[in-house]
């Protein structure tokens, strides 16, 4: 057999092997077999196309395109590579997103080499999100998770990579490594739930999609969420009450107090105003009363004046007619207030008085002296008062003197002294005045003597008391 035929057979053999492996998703094995196939025959278009397909299945899209382009180079007509290339270019932007994923992967390799594991993880997550079948990205991400201790996340990535390529050496080795690590930590409690949740001593890690959630493990305290909620509510109520008491209530009290103060001020103003009004009204009332009293006085005075006029006219008429006794006329005339009369009335009064009063004074004075000497002081007083009223200075004040003496006899010394004093002041030089003065002097002497006797008596009493006290001391 020609060696070319043998080479073709070998190439086909390895192509078939690669095909079998590709069918069971043994991508790494398929790549090896197919590359071997192409080593025997580089123009094995089928092998090359399948190799491209395997590369595409692993997420190495650019490598797949290279193989398909080379395939087209060897067989430009009736080549399924056209279809594959067309499918990739069919969806606009898909190739670009894959290209972006490749760039992110390349960046992640650099970041990981510069101790930027966290950033590399972020970039790889983006790359995987854009290109989920990218095996290398899953593997690198798993490596980074292992490096950062996120074994659950690493396991998840490796599972995905394993599904895409079941015999990838890196995937299998990393999975073995994780298993070894898990076995080397027997104290850790492992609890796998349906969602792949693992409980650790202090954290709970679980995965949702491509995201890994790590949260602190719930403690007994936190698991009692009802009690916790109740306590929170109680604390909140207490804090609210404290805020109310210390912050809001004083402000409210101040506001109320201010209102009250304003009301008090307002009421005080009103009270002051009303008091002022009351005072003004009182003053006005007093004025009215005073005016009323004045009016009453004026009225009384008017009545008195009228009465006086009538009496004067009446007495004048009787005096002319001589149809009334002097005593009766005198009684009437004594009722008259001479000062209230006008000029004409006064003139008329004086005329009557000048006619009537002298003779009546004489009669009454004589009667009064007799009554005085008889000891009938009351009657004497009555007569003398009439005399003095008619003529105060009758007989140079002797009538007034006799009146004072009558008061003195009756024991009404004060009234007597008033008359005496009047005589002394108004009738100086007259005999009556001198007698009045003597009477007053006599009273002063009596008073001095009485006071002196009173003082001597008190001194003697004091001396007697002192002597008595000394005797008592001697006896004791």
């Amino acid at each position: 057999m020609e060696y070319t035929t043998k080479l073709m057979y070998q190439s086909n053999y390895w192509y078939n092997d690669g095909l079998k492996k590709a069918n069971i998703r043994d991508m790494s094995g398929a790549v090896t077999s197919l590359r071997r196939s192409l080593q025997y025959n580089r123009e094995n278009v089928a092998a090359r196309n399948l190799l491209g397909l395997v590369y595409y299945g692993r997420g190495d899209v650019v490598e797949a395109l290279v193989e398909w382009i080379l395939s087209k180079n060897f067989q430009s007509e009736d080549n399924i590579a056209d279809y594959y290339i067309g499918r990739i270019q069919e969806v606009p932007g898909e190739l670009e997103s894959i290209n972006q994923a490749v760039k992110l992967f390349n960046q992640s390799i650099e970041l990981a080499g510069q101790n930027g594991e966290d950033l590399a993880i972020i970039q790889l997550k983006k790359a995987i999100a854009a290109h989920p079948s990218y095996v290398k990205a899953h593997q690198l991400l798993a490596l980074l998770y292992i490096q950062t201790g996120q074994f659950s996340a690493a396991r998840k990535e490796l599972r995905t990579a394993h599904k895409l390529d079941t015999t990838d050496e890196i995937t299998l080795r990393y999975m073995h490594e994780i298993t070894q690590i898990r076995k080397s930590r027997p104290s850790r409690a492992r609890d796998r739930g349906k969602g792949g949740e693992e409980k650790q001593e202090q954290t709970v890690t679980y995965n949702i999609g491509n995201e890994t959630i790590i949260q602190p493990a719930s403690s007994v305290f936190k698991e009692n969420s009802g009690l916790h909620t109740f306590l929170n509510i109680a604390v909140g109520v207490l804090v609210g009450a404290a805020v109310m008491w210390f912050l809001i209530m004083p402000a409210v009290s101040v506001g109320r107090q201010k209102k009250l103060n304003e009301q008090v001020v307002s009421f005080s103003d009103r009270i002051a105003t009303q008091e002022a009004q009351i005072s003004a009204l009182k003053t006005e009332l007093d004025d009215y009363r005073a005016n009323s009293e004045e009016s009453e006085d004026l009225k009384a005075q008017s009545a008195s004046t009228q009465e006086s006029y009538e009496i004067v006219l009446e007495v004048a008429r009787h005096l002319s007619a001589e149809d009334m006794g002097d005593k009766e006329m005198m009684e009437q005339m004594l009722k008259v207030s001479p000062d209230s009369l006008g000029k004409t009335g006064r003139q008329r009064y004086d005329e009557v008085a000048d006619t009537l009063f002298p003779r009546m004074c004489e009669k009454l004075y004589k009667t009064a002296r007799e009554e005085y000497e008889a000891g009938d002081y009351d009657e004497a007083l009555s007569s003398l008062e009439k005399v003095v009223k008619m003529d105060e200075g009758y007989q140079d004040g002797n009538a007034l003197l006799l009146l004072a003496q009558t008061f003195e006899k009756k024991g009404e010394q004060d009234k007597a002294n008033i008359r005496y004093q009047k005589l002394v002041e108004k009738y100086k030089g007259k005999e009556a005045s001198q007698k009045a003065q003597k009477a007053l002097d006599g009273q002063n002497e009596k008073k001095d003597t009485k006071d002196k006797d009173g003082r001597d008596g008190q001194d003697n009493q004091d001396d007697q008391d002192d002597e008595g006290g000394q005797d008592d001391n001697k006896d004791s």
Partner: protein
Amino acid sequence: MLDFAEELKKFQPSLEVEDIEGAVYQEDLTDMTDILREMIEQTK
């Protein structure tokens, strides 16, 4: 235990779309036929 640095070295940057042309030209397409031909020529 994995050696992170060593493992990281195994990850080579992937080809980007812009590198397709270069990769196609650089692809080694030598197969057994070429090798045998060389061997025959060498023996000649």
